[in-house]
């Protein structure tokens, strides 16, 4: 009997202890709104993971210092619990579980990359935790009917279809011949689907359609085909290694193609690593600092870039900008919901319609942002060999005129 009592009291003490400790970690403590995020601080995505974290931190500091979030007449500040997911989807899913069920986090920020977002989304969905993510663009994220996933960025299939349309336009509205090479991963294959759509829409023909391996560092075979078949546009997407490999080998093999469109140019620091060889490459980007969107916190792209440079010592890549935007979206949704109820916040997120320095944000039922077009910039170099990325499309933000066709190597 006595033993039973002791056990009972021990268990109840444990329960009380646990419940209080969970409460002390829960989403809103005192004047703090605690968000959770699993981020790749080590492993193969660590550089972009750090860009993401810097973007989040910058926005948290800015929002907190400018008055925080006002809910129910009270002012709250943001705080983020970070865990390192080691660039590993399994680990990311575990950490999401841990954030939600152990740390009691009720609102999440996304990880870096489509693959990791895909791993986390089922977990946040299961617990009904609203997640605003800024770095998962894969189309498959938005076709699963997730109700609690919101992405501030444009989906992957829209990355390069502007390029095809521009090429058709420059060809006098006539269809073009497209050569394409994509890595075999979720993101790049989505970009490919976008190109297929654009080709069908414009009646263009795809004459080379290569899939690049994950361990890609040689695409000479594709480029030899390009040299022989002379397409009007060459499209390459394979993360940073794809961009770097393509530029190196195009220059070495003197491949002449009127238009070259790619992804991940700024992440690859193309103009820094390749200098003049990267000239004329067209790059898809979610954001560029010269865009003229505005908000109250970061003012505009130029100011954001300057502030970011001051704090972290480098020019912000779009991964940082979109991550900062995610926090602005959360703040806006909390204030409109005027509550910390997950359902109400979710509904407020779904009704988001705002402008940030990063772009307009309005979510489709699938969760993707439909109000922000992709921009294309072109690498342009001056005579001294210093290169700059200049926006060339859409025309509304163009700060330079597209150079087309790309001059032949023999004439450079």
């Amino acid at each position, binding site marked *: 009997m006595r033993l039973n009592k002791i056990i009972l009291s021990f268990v109840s003490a444990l329960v009380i202890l646990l419940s209080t400790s969970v409460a002390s970690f829960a989403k809103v403590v005192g004047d703090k709104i605690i968000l959770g995020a699993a981020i790749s601080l*080590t*492993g*193969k*995505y*660590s*550089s972009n993971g750090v860009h993401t974290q810097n973007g989040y931190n910058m926005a948290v500091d800015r929002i907190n210092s400018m008055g925080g979030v006002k809910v129910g007449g009270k002012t709250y500040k943001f705080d983020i619990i970070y865990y390192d997911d080691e*660039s590993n989807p399994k680990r990311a899913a575990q950490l999401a579980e841990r954030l939600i069920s152990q740390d009691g986090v009720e609102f999440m920020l996304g990880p870096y990359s489509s693959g990791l977002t895909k791993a986390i989304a089922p977990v946040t969905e299961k617990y009904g935790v609203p997640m605003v993510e800024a770095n998962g663009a894969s189309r498959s994220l938005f076709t699963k009917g997730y109700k609690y996933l919101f992405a501030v960025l444009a989906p992957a299939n829209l990355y390069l279809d502007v390029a095809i349309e521009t090429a058709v336009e420059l060809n006098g509205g006539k269809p073009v011949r497209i050569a394409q*090479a994509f890595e*075999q991963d979720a993101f790049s294959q989505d970009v490919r689907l976008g190109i297929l759509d654009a080709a069908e829409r414009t009646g263009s023909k795809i004459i*080379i359609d*290569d*899939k*690049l*391996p994950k*361990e890609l*560092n*040689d*695409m*000479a*075979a*594709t480029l*030899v*085909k390009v*040299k*022989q*078949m002379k397409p009007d546009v060459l499209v390459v997407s394979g*993360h*940073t*290694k794809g961009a*770097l*490999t393509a530029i*190196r*080998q195009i220059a*070495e*093999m*003197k491949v002449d193609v009127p238009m070259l469109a790619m992804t991940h140019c700024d992440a*690859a*620091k193309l103009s820094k*690593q*390749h*200098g003049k060889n990267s000239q004329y490459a067209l790059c898809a980007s979610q954001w560029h600092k010269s865009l003229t969107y505005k908000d109250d916190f970061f003012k505009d792209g130029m100011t954001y870039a300057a502030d970011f440079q001051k704090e972290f010592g480098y020019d912000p890549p779009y991964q940082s900008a979109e991550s900062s935007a995610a926090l602005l979206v959360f703040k806006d949704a909390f204030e409109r919901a005027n509550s910390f109820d997950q359902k109400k916040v979710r509904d407020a997120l779904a009704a988001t319609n705002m402008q940030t320095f990063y772009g307009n944000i309005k979510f489709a039922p699938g969760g993707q942002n439909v109000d922000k077009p992709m921009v294309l910039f072109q690498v342009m170099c001056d005579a001294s060999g210093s290169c700059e990325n200049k926006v060339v499309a859409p025309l509304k933000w163009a700060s330079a005129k597209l150079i087309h066709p790309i001059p032949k190597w023999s004439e450079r």
Partner: protein
Amino acid sequence: MDFLVFQYPMITVQACLDGILLGVLFALIAYGMALQWGVMNIINIAQGDLVILGGYIAYFMYLYGIHPAWGVIVAPVIMYFVGIAIYKLVINKVVDRDLFISILATFGISILFMQLMNFAFGADVVLANSGYGTTMLFDSNVVLPNSKIFSAFISILFAACLVIYMKKSKLGRAIRATAQNARAAKILGVDTEKVYAATFGINAALCGVAGALISITFTIHPYMGLPYTIRSFMIVIVAGLGNLPGVAMSGMGLGVFEEFADYILGTEFRIGSVFLLLVLILVYRRFKLSRKREYLK
């Protein structure tokens, strides 16, 4: 892809040349692996990671304004000592055990190296620009980047030096003796411990050279080592141990095979076709072996 190779005959020439230049580089890495395998009976899973580390040495020289081509001299020297250190710390404890233990040990080293490189150098893909131009052949229908020609030339040079060294020098003879029969060599006064350390060092140095060349011709990244391990494993399997001309031939053969697989089947089947070839060769060897045994009976 359809039959581009026939539509554009120049592609055949291009594929052969590309394949040979690439294959020579593979053969250099495979030669190191064969040497080590033959002498110490160790299959080094960390081979590719040693290559990448060598690449980073050349990359950092490039970053500090030294032409990366000097990497082919500096990288092997540094890598030789890295190799000796790995031997003293880990390999000498597993060298007499069965193959499985040593595979596990080198697998562990491979993971450790990947993570350390990621930690130290970051996860960015990098490359070193050599500034070498391009050679155009056949009315500029066939293009060969000079960096590829340079890397093939250096690979052959190093392989040739090594062959001469193995034949002529005292250490080379000791290494060959140990490979034939370690116990007998020991009885005859060869310090096998020293031979093992030197072998591991030489292998790491070869990886260093190859890595420096790869940073000049392709790109490097902390996690890109594995394909090089697999390719060299494949080459050694095909050629057999202690068969240098075989390693060179099967290296070039593999290079050309990959290029043609790329044109005919498509880029997505490039690595897959290598594996398929590996399976076919193993089955064929098995078949040959079983016939031999019957004959002996």
